[in-house]
């Protein structure tokens, strides 16, 4: 009886609302964003002239990298899986360990990293003060000398364009679409198994830090976690909870890129962080729900 009362109590506490909210397109400066596209796809900014942002954030793979880890200049291998740029503007921090507070800071990471683009600010500024960039920048920023800051600004403006509104689930939240029976049950499971405790908000994740492997710790490589920044014991194996929007497009999964199949990823997550063995039927349903989070891909053509 006691337990029954407690369960009812917990279920009432469960019924909080607005846990996942729809996203919208952001207002942007088109000219800047257009410039941002050029910068994003230009490999001349890297040290060996072969790597651009798009090398690891590939539009055809959900603006992420299909490889386990990305390859940088001179074929150097990265240490962590490249996350998607889609909806990154909605994340509360950038990078797996959240060491950058916004997209501006984030650009410093890969451009300067010796195993990614290996560029310096001087190198970048040299390029943008030559044609064809020189006049393009001056037209927008109206200064004699083009700075690295403007370079960041243009790319960020473009990244703000890379959002995916109108996913099936968002439309459902707005009352403009209906979910199938299975998708609804999938969402219910998503809530009741506790996924939603960490994956919530407008980005269905990307808004808090969490320890991976709280219940069962699978053998995984734990590189560049929060601990590497804070050096607090509590931050060992702690990462930013990734967004689940467009998750079906951005295989492989986890910071290690260990798992290619989304269903296996769901099973692994349940085992590691919740201590449950989800059965195939349950996984299938959650999988179906996750598919509804795939939004409308941004149409770059509309900017040109």
């Amino acid at each position, binding site marked *: 009886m006691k337990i029954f009362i*407690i369960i009812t109590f917990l279920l009432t506490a469960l019924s909080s609302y607005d846990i996942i909210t729809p996203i919208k397109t952001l207002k942007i400066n088109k000219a800047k964003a257009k410039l941002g596209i050029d910068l994003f796809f230009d490999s001349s900014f890297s040290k060996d002239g072969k790597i651009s942002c798009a090398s690891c954030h590939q539009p055809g793979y959900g603006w992420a990298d299909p490889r386990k880890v990305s390859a940088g200049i001179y074929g150097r291998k990265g240490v962590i899986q490249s996350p998607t740029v889609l909806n990154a503007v909605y994340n509360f921090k950038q990078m797996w360990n959240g060491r950058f507070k916004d997209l501006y800071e984030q650009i410093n990471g890969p451009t300067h990293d010796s195993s990614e683009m290996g560029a310096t600010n001087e190198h970048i500024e040299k390029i943008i003060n030559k044609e064809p960039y020189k006049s393009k920048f001056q037209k927008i920023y109206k200064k004699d000398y083009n700075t690295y800051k403007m370079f960041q600004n243009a790319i960020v403006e473009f990244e703000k364009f890379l959002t995916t509104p109108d996913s099936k689930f968002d439309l459902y939240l707005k009352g403009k679409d209906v979910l199938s029976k299975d998708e609804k049950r999938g969402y219910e499971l998503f809530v009741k198994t*506790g996924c939603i405790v960490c994956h919530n908000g*407008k980005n269905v994740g990307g808004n808090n830090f969490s*320890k991976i492997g*709280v219940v069962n710790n699978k053998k995984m490589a734990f590189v560049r976690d929060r601990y590497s920044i804070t050096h607090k014991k509590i931050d060992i194996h702690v990462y930013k909870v990734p967004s689940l929007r467009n998750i079906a497009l951005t295989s492989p999964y986890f910071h290690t890129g260990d798992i290619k199949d989304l269903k296996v990823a769901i099973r692994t997550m349940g085992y590691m962080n919740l*201590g449950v063995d989800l059965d195939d039927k349950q996984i299938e349903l959650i999988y179906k729900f996750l598919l509804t989070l795939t939004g409308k891909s941004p149409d770059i053509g509309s900017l040109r």
Partner: protein
Amino acid sequence: MKTKAVLTILILIITFLGYKYNSKSLHNVLLQEKEVSHKINEFKNNIYNIDKETLKLSFFLYNNYDEINMLINKLDKQTNDFHNKALKDYVSKKIESIYHFEILNSPLKNSIFYTLLLNKRATQNIKNRDYLKKLNDTIFDMIVLKSVNDKLILEKFLQDYGYFKNYKSDDKTELLYNAQILGQLNVFQKYYVYYKKYFNAMFENRDILNELSSIYYNINEKLKEKKLSFSTFAILLQIILFIALISLLYFMKKFNNEHKKLQIVSKTDKLTGLLNRDFFDIDKQRLSHPILFLININNFRNFNELYGVETGDHILSEVAKIIKNIKMGYRARYYRLGGDDFGVLLDADNIDKDMIAKKYISEISNKKIEYNDLIFEVSVSIGVSEELPLFSNADIALINAKSDKDLNYYIYNKSYGNSKKTIIHANLKKSNILKETIKNNSIIIYLQPLVDIKTGKIIKYEALSRIKNRDKIDSIYPYLEIAKSSKVYIELSMQIIKKCFDLIVKDDKLNISINLSIQDILSDKINKLIMKFLDNNTKDVGKRITFELLESEMIEDFEFIEEFIMKVKSYGVKIAIDDFGSGYSNFEYLVKLHTDILKIDGSLIKDIYENKNNYFIVKHITKLSKELNIETVAEFVCQEEISKTLKELDIDMMQGYLYGKPFDAINLSKDSLKY
């Protein structure tokens, strides 16, 4: 007259020039100050919003984290405005604690939830009844621990955790099931302490929030300079104006004194538009036969307290209007003489004072006052006097009218005026003695024994308070009423209780019964004093204490009182109800207050051997108490006959002159402690 005009013009010119010169900087300072206070408020507000949101995170099973991230971003930006390292450190520490709290919050919630879910299937997997019971207990502990910080329950949880960890069974399903349970409990056991740590850390070091304005000004030197230059100017200007004013006053003395005074003293009361007290003092001297009707609104304080000061003000101005509009046929002047005191001053010989007073009372109570859709009915009491000093005599009459249940106006007359004065005088004297006593901490504690009715042995002593009045020793009762009205009551109670506690500590055999009023228990100070004493002393000290609750007051905050009683009872303290059979006592109270002992009121005891009614009442109280398992005490036992009758009635204890008069606690000897 000429000099005055020149002087005034001079002041005006100085002021104007000074103001024009400094107005710009003044304007800027004011503007910036407004901005700063706005910034500080915003900052604090944000901190509170973040706190609210974190508490929501902790309470809800799951919640949207976006809101708190937005607030944190805002806080980050706000902090930069202050350019202060200490504040930055505080904020970054707070934010870090929030992130850590979030990291621990979700696994902890999930582990509780999953243990609950697993428990649903427990009976299918586990046959061991002990195991099932332990599991239920553990879940309960987890839920409690999540919401409170209880070391005992944590210890219990860790103990039970050991049980699951070391659980052995031959049955494979059982082992498999236990492994799942253990997986969840591991999480809870591992992270709980950190969870609490970071939860608390989120709310630590808030002192800095009180220093925001000084922080802001320290970094804003420019603003500080401006402020300085402005204030030097302001001081200078003030000095000039002050000198000017003094000289102005000097010149004014030459003119008609009274006439000038009236120009300075503002004539009327702002709120009611009636003349003020200063005017009254001048007017009354002019009249040949002044009569004052002092009108006071009954229970005016209630209006202010229940409906707010605005309502009170409205009622005052309305009543003033009503009074002004009542036509008496005499020339009258109207004054506001105090908070809710109005004065009507007539100049007339031989008038019907009763008629006038009655007319005021009925006219005012007939009028209804409307405010904010509420209708108020106001009644007044009136004191009338034509004897000098007018005001204080009318006031004495008014006090009489207030205390009289039948008559709501009084006309001052010398004889009762005098008797009233003696009472006031006596009260003043008592109040002085009381103040002295409290100042010197010289309350004297007397002890009176309570004896067992069967063995005649002393069981304990009731502590009674005495006050030294020159050479006499007075009972405390006449002083208590004064203490309550002059706000020294709690201080007095504290001293009495402390002295009783000292006695308990000094004699480890003394059992003592201490009187407590409901007001005492509701006092935070006294509550803390008692709890600290019970906490700091050996375990059985509580067993030697009885609290006698004086039930002369209605208990409004029952829950609070009950909580207090349950707390002290856990130390072994007994609860007695004093004076049962009088005042507000009833049997419902007895049960609700978890009474151990009941003291039957002396009025029922003193003639019990001849008054059949009282005998009957006491008999039934005793019988009911026995059924409720409550011990009974009879007070005022001063004759053999009473004692004899009480023995028939099966009462447990007796107290009274027959068994021992109260004596000064200093004289407490080892002998008297032989029970």
